[in-house]
């Protein structure tokens, strides 16, 4: 066990945790944004992430087959990100329009069931499209490492950590500074009052879905490039883990979703050091149970009942 407490191992695990945690955080933001505005859990969000990943994959394959990716690797990766974000935000907006908006006045269980239905539908749709096979992201940029002392870190990891932080920072600025962001906060606080003040509530809700979905699409490409394998079921476990992260941080709270994502990633990675690796998923869901029992509002949670 002496090896386990080696600081290098712990630093390595924290880097591993930050990498996957950034992905969890990006997906968790979609849950939390939607919850903040509609008080509903969009359980099809994992599928939005999966579609984004395939959108990026399709774009990359076009570039690889045309030879463009071999000449302009960085450009193709950026284009793949954009493609993924477009695909998933369109899908997110469609989901809102088709599966949730008609049910907006209904009891809270109804949109939840609709979300689960949408999730199953989207999984099966993608299964038919990809013929239920695993797909492998092409290696557009060869992976290289930098060594800092005894710690080695991959450029991919740095890239994922930095870009997830940047995206979240951008989201924060958008919500706090832009006019649309202000309207989003107004709708979250009181939908009726916002409507009376001239805010187009339907438009704002649509934008919220699209925004959260775009972040999930970006996470989809990161996972595709880093872990390489994607399939139609890939949204399920990360979806639930990101939901856990959102609850952990305090659902409805943007900073909480980020914190929850990183926290979950790091706890999973460090947890493997003290218990068998096969319990990795147990850590995440055990945490979910603990939070729901002892602090249902999460680490940074707002007291939702007061707002309603």
């Amino acid at each position, binding site marked *: 066990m002496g*090896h*386990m407490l*080696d600081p*290098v*191992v712990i630093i*390595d*695990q924290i880097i*591993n*945790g930050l*990498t*996957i945690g950034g992905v969890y955080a990006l997906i968790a933001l979609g849950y939390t944004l939607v919850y903040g505005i509609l008080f509903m859990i969009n359980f099809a969000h994992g599928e939005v992430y999966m579609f984004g990943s395939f959108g990026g994959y399709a774009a990359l394959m076009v570039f690889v087959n045309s030879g463009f990716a071999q000449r302009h690797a960085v450009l193709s990766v950026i284009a793949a990100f954009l493609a993924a974000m477009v695909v998933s935000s369109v899908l997110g907006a469609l989901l809102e329009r088709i599966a949730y908006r008609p049910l907006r006045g209904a009891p809270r269980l109804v949109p939840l069931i609709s979300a689960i239905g949408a999730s199953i539908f989207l999984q099966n749709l993608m*299964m038919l499209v990809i013929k*239920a*096979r*695993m797909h*492998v992201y092409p*290696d557009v940029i060869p*992976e290289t*490492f930098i060594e800092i002392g005894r710690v*080695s870190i*991959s450029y*991919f990891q740095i890239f994922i950590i930095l870009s997830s932080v940047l995206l979240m920072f951008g989201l924060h600025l958008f919500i706090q500074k832009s006019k649309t962001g202000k309207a989003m906060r107004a709708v979250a606080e009181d939908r009726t009052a916002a409507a009376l003040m001239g805010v187009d509530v339907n438009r704002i809700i649509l934008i919220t879905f699209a925004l959260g979905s775009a972040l999930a699409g970006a996470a989809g490409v990161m*996972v595709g490039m880093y*872990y*390489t*394998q994607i*399939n139609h*079921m*890939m949204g399920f*476990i990360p979806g639930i883990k990101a939901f856990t992260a959102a609850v952990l941080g305090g659902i409805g709270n943007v900073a909480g979703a980020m914190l929850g994502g990183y926290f979950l990633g790091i706890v*999973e*990675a460090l947890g*493997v*050091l003290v218990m*068998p*690796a*096969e319990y*990795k*998923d147990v850590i995440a869901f055990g945490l979910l149970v603990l939070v729901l029992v002892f602090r249902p509002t999460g680490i940074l949670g707002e007291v939702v009942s007061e707002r309603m």
Partner: protein
Amino acid sequence: MRDKALVMFIVTLACILFARPLVHADEWGTIVIPRDKPIKIGLGSMLTGDYAGMGIDIMNGAEMAVAEKGAILGHPVVLQAEDDGCAGPASVAVAEKFCNDPLVVGLVGYMCSGGSKPASDIHNKYKLVMVSPSSTALELTARGIPIFFRTCWNDKIQAGRAAAFALSRNWRNVAVLHDKSDYGQSLSEDFAGHIESNGGKVVASEGITRGDKDFSPVLTKIKPLRPQLIYFGGMSAEGVLIARQMKRTGIKARFMSDDGCYTEKDFIQAGGSATNGSFVTYAKEPDPAWVERFEAKYGPRQTFSPQAYDAANILMRAVEKVAGRQTDGSLVIGKKPLRDAVAATEYEGITGKIVFDAHGDRTGSVVVVYEVVEEKGKRFFKPVDF
């Protein structure tokens, strides 16, 4: 009171000892294929999902054998493939379906040991013979189930061979990983046992979850233990990611796995250069003339299509041998004679001579160690002598 209990006990014991049913030749029942109806060969393998590449390859192998045969005693033969998802519950459902289909005479499958194990209980209940091309778990042939046969090897042979190879390279500090399946776990435990009983040391033994994509935490945990080899019992989807992420974690150890990773598409190609220098175990290469015929029809072969081809042929030969043609054009096939005909197989297949031992295992199985090498821009599995 004690006496009464004792009497009851003796009576019960006597009932168990003497009340054995008498064994008749037709005790297992018969299959009747009516006139103008096809003979069905069932197939259970994973056709959708992460290991579908391997499952479809198995289906193609069996399909090729059935298509080449065409008909038995005037009845067309068809293959009915079902997706069993490589897991227990789905395999049991598929087994129930096949066992209750009056036209199914036998089955090629199941693909995964975790599916074959519960499904073989169902098959044993209905006495429908099954020949698995790929279920290698040791216990499948150790449970006294008379209707189970396999054209592959068992994991005792595979793990022993892998361990002997590791020891021949003087890799005495090894870490083992497995995917918690009947297949992967028993294989890795067997491997670890061989290493330890030959003076080696197993520095870590960890389970991972099928379908997970991030193994860096467990690899980071293993790294400071400095194993010379990481042995993985499991399938290609996870195996290839472990090989890739070993490089990322900075582990200098070699990677070794089993037949689950012997697939060009899902291991060598999906892994990129990170899989160069990895080792896998698999059978001897099948007849090259057959491979040429197969690849012309279905594209590159992956893993178990030759074993599936042989399995289907064994079943069809047995049916041919025991089927009795009635005057009305129907076929009557006794389930017991059919099973016995499979058991008595002596067949020169494309994977070599096939004879089964009393447990349904193939005698004289040879497992070969392959290394992923890159030569002249081509990356492939190359047999390693040791």
